């Protein structure tokens, strides 16, 4: 299983800070497509982090990986 975290406007749209689902073996791009479909969020311009490091679309997820979707940041 995988923990998937949402922040900022994504969390508002999804209505949850995190959800649990099995993304093992999927690429980040595939995970984005699944979540976009399931929660009606646009993840095209959103970065993904796996286990707190930025990940590429082709990276493959393992069981237990924590996936976070990172909208363009606005700190500072």
């Amino acid at each position, binding site marked *: 299983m995988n923990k998937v*975290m949402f*922040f*900022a*406007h994504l969390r*508002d749209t999804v209505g949850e800070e995190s959800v649990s689902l099995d993304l093992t073996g999927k690429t*980040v*791009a595939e995970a984005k497509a699944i979540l976009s479909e399931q929660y009606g969020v646009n993840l*095209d*311009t*959103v*970065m*993904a*982090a796996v286990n*707190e*490091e*930025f*990940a*590429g*679309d082709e990276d493959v997820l393992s069981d237990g990986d924590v996936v*976070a979707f*990172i*909208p*363009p*940041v*606005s*700190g*500072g």
Partner: protein
Amino acid sequence: MIQSLRQDRTEEGANMNFEISREPLDTQSIIDKVVQREAGAITTFIGTVRELTAGKKTLYLIYEAYESMAVKKLEQIGREIEERWPGAKVAISHRVGKLEITDIAVVIAVSTPHRADAYEANRYAIERIKEIVPIWKKEHWEDGEEWIGNQLETVAYPKGKPEESDLDE
């Protein structure tokens, strides 16, 4: 919550110079972290909440962070600075939660042997924060609210993550 986080990091021996704080920032204590005998200069950047943006009046801001990753990314910025500017020492604190106009959102302190490096490295730190640290602000106006950095999509990462050219400003 933040107290327990801080304690955990201390137990792990992690670098306390980089933190996300729910409490108001104490600028002097952040400056104190970079004091070193080798330094000839300390620069301090204090980012504050501005009332007017493009003529629109902000009532207050909410900052939110992916805290564990944000601390890691602040630490990364610190390491990048120490590599680019040998002898530099860095401390960065970013506040989260509700901030009023004029409140301090971020404090960056950099000490270096010579002043030019302290200015440059400090500027580098704030620009990097705006690129790679997972912190978001929600602006609240009289007529609404919006997470900044999303709907307008003024910043987009078509390849899914920042590229070298994005990161170099």
